[in-house]
């Protein structure tokens, strides 16, 4: 019964989205307030109905209603409740429903919070959002219906892929989708601006918080995905350049560029058509990400449904949305007034440079991901691009960008003087230089890169925090007031940039100093590794709720005290599949990572890794995301809040 309710709710949502794509656009064109109001109502109702459909599917999963075909394919009565619920989005159909749900919620958000927007702009944004909603609801209903029944209903379902039964992965897809789909709002604003042929300050003030609202969960989602790969795939890597990882990295890189260029547009009215182009491309890359996973053009671990019919449909959506919006762009964008002029050495200039680097980085990842497809098309060769490609192309572009990050917020808007800028960064530069000098004598060529990485991290962290230091120092007579009046957007900026420094520190540490060891162990054996002593204290078979595991227990003694670690090899009989649960001791200085392998005559094979500083990679990612959140909570950025504008062009250093 509930499945039919869900199905019906989806059909109603599709009809509403069709209304939403027609009425407000026409109303805005004719200046008809009633039609524009219809758009708002349709968006709110659509949000309600898609939520209802999602609740119905989630309920079917939680209660193990195997008469729903999808549930029978991805749920099992012995699967713990949390994973039965998470399985709702563990399949292709379910994840598309989640996608549509988030899209509908964002649409309802624009309708609900958009009261302060110009009425025609809001109506056009909602209209474009309605078109997207109709396209994806159609995709869901016609090619991937989640509510199909199965008759007769089986007594037991097939289990969700055990690799996906993990707390990290419960949150990973919703966060990523909040990010991907969140960029749709910026996209709709961009298309609405092109239809209107004008971009004003209100437009820019509105777009930036929505971009930020998408960027925060996307950053957290990518970080979480990386952490999951680290502990679940059982071999301690943290980034694999897998096509699907790249698909999330590309919108992130371009979205980061958009976040910065929207700032220039908001404050100075410059980079207008560039920002619009970025908004279109960022969302398009999110769509390409969706397309990539589901089309079968590239194969990957993450690919759940390889189905050419679905691929064609998504390609159609991509052609329609990106193609039409870019065509609209080539027609309308030249007519939009271009903004204020600025000197090359200025905050605007710095952000332009940032955008160039981020766009180039996106292009490298894009080429790496798709060049196998292109090359095969040109001369029929099948080639594969692996980590070596990215080491040669991505890193040489990323390092200078990281170096330049510190300068950006130190620059004044409009124009600046090189001497003064260097003066502002003198202290972080001296400290980073000292780090370089101290670290340099250790090691050969690899040591130079390591010392450079450490200095870069110090430069990024200190150079970002220094913004607050300078601000508070100049207001030291009233320090309490200086701290209280620091806008949250500045605290957010400092946090996010410092997070990038922590990330750099983690990458440097684990790249430079990681070590590993493989050996056979019997119960009672001890081994010395990376300054610690490990003893295998127990090796036994244990029963989990839906798996059997061989569990190895280790007692570890080291400089950081004594503790126990356990690693398991799990066998999931109903899914016929095996996973490795690594034993990890997480610490600020480094992780000890233990994973058990096969049994052999000489005992069991144990692999040990020492990963110095690796945890800072994920802390850095989450700190960046938190920085975004702090910035979003700033009153001046917040959606719909009244704005106290600063006089344009006022040189506010270090902000």
């Amino acid at each position, binding site marked *: 019964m509930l499945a039919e309710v869900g199905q019906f709710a989806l059909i109603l949502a599709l009809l509403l989205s069709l209304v939403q794509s027609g009425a407000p656009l026409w109303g805005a064109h004719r200046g008809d307030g009633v039609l524009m109001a219809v758009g708002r109502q349709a968006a709110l109702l659509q949000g309600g109905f898609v939520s209802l459909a999602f609740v119905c599917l989630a309920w079917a999963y939680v209660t193990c209603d195997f008469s729903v075909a999808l549930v029978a394919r991805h749920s099992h009565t012995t699967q713990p409740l949390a994973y039965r619920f998470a399985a709702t989005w563990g399949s292709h159909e379910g994840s598309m429903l989640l996608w549509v749900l988030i899209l509908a919620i964002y649409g309802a958000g624009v309708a609900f919070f958009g009261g302060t927007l110009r009425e025609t702009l809001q109506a056009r944004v909602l209209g474009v959002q309605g078109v997207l909603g109709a396209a994806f609801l159609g995709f869901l209903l016609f090619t991937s219906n989640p509510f199909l029944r199965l008759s007769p209903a089986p007594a037991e379902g097939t289990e969700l892929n055990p690799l996906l039964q993990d707390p990290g992965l419960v949150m990973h897809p919703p966060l990523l989708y909040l990010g991907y789909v969140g960029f749709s709002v910026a996209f709709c604003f961009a298309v609405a601006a092109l239809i209107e042929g004008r971009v004003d300050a209100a437009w820019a003030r509105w777009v930036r918080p929505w971009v930020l609202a998408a960027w925060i969960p996307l950053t957290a989602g990518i970080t979480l995905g990386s952490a999951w790969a680290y502990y679940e795939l*059982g071999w301690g*890597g943290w980034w694999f350049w897998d096509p699907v990882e790249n698909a999330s990295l590309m919108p992130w890189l371009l979205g980061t560029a958009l976040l910065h260029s929207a700032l220039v547009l908001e404050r100075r009215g410059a980079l207008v058509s560039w920002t619009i182009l970025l908004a279109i491309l960022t969302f398009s890359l999110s769509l390409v990400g969706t397309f990539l996973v589901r089309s079968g053009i590239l*194969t990957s671990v993450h690919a759940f449904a390889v189905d050419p019919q679905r691929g064609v449909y998504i*390609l159609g959506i991509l052609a329609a949305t990106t193609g039409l919006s870019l065509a609209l762009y080539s027609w309308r964008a030249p007519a939009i007034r271009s903004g204020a002029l600025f000197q090359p050495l200025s905050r605007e200039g710095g952000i332009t440079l940032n955008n160039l680097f981020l766009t180039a980085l996106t292009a490298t990842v894009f080429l790496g991901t798709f060049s196998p*497809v292109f090359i*095969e098309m040109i001369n*029929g060769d099948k080639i594969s691009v692996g980590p070596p490609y990215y080491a040669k192309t991505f890193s040489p572009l990323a390092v200078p960008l990281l170096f330049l990050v510190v300068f950006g917020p130190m620059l004044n808007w409009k124009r600046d003087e090189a001497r003064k800028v260097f003066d502002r960064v003198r202290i972080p530069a001296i400290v980073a230089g000292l780090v370089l000098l101290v670290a340099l004598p250790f090691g050969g060529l690899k040591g130079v890169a390591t010392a450079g990485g450490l200095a870069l991290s110090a430069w990024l962290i200190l150079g970002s925090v220094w913004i607050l230091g300078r601000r508070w120092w100049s207001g030291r007579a009233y320090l309490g007031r200086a701290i209280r009046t620091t806008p949250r957007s500045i605290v957010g900026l400092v946090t996010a940039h410092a997070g990038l420094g922590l990330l750099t520190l983690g990458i440097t540490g684990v790249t430079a100093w990681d070590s590993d060891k*493989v050996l056979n162990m019997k119960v009672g054996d001890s081994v010395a590794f990376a300054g610690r002593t490990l003893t295998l204290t127990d090796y036994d078979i244990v029963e989990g709720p839906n798996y059997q595991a061989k569990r190895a227990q280790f007692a570890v003694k080291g400089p950081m005290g004594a503790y126990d670690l356990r690693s398991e090899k799990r066998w999931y009989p109903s899914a016929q599949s095996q996973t490795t649960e690594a034993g990890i001791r997480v610490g600020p200085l480094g992780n000890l990572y233990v994973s058990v392998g096969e049994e052999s005559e000489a005992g069991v094979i144990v692999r040990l890794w020492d990963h110095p500083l690796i945890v800072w990679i994920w802390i850095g990612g989450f700190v960046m995301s938190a920085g975004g959140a702090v910035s979003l909570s700033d009153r001046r950025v917040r959606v719909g809040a009244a704005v106290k504008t600063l006089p344009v062009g006022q040189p506010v250093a270090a902000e």
Partner: protein
Amino acid sequence: MKRLLFILPVVGFLILLGVFFVGLGRDPRALPSAFIGKPLPAFTTAPLRPGDQGLSNTDFQRGEPVLLNVFASWCGPCRVEHPVLMRLRQEGVAIHGLDWKEDAAAGAQWLAERGDPYIRAGNDQTGRTGIEFGVAGVPETFVIDKQGRVRYRHVGALTPDDWERKVGPLMEQLRKEP
């Protein structure tokens, strides 16, 4: 002139769309047809396991059909596929392995740690050998018949489902061929 700059994105996108569309028409799991039914090209590779012989095309004339599994320790899907290969080996399926684009030490360590499902295992450090018979990425699995001819190519991790539906029945059929 400035207008052209604004038209550039849409032109670029149309080209990309064309590539995607053509790409969609092809099955990424399909073997270039030239190889089906033909013998493996002549090749020899360095040994993967220390003190072992490498892998060469003559290793495939065993009087039984063989799977050739191309893998690497840096590849995520290979991890997913590995337990399946271990099971097949225990069930008596003949499998040769080709460790692709990495040092033999890394591949050997992977086998030591996770178990070794291969009868013969070669190391293709530069990736040349794999490219000669059309490996696009790892993992890939080829089905080779008694005469040493390529009969089927599977791209991506070999799941229990793939084995039940396609590869297993094919091996069974090839076993009955003269």
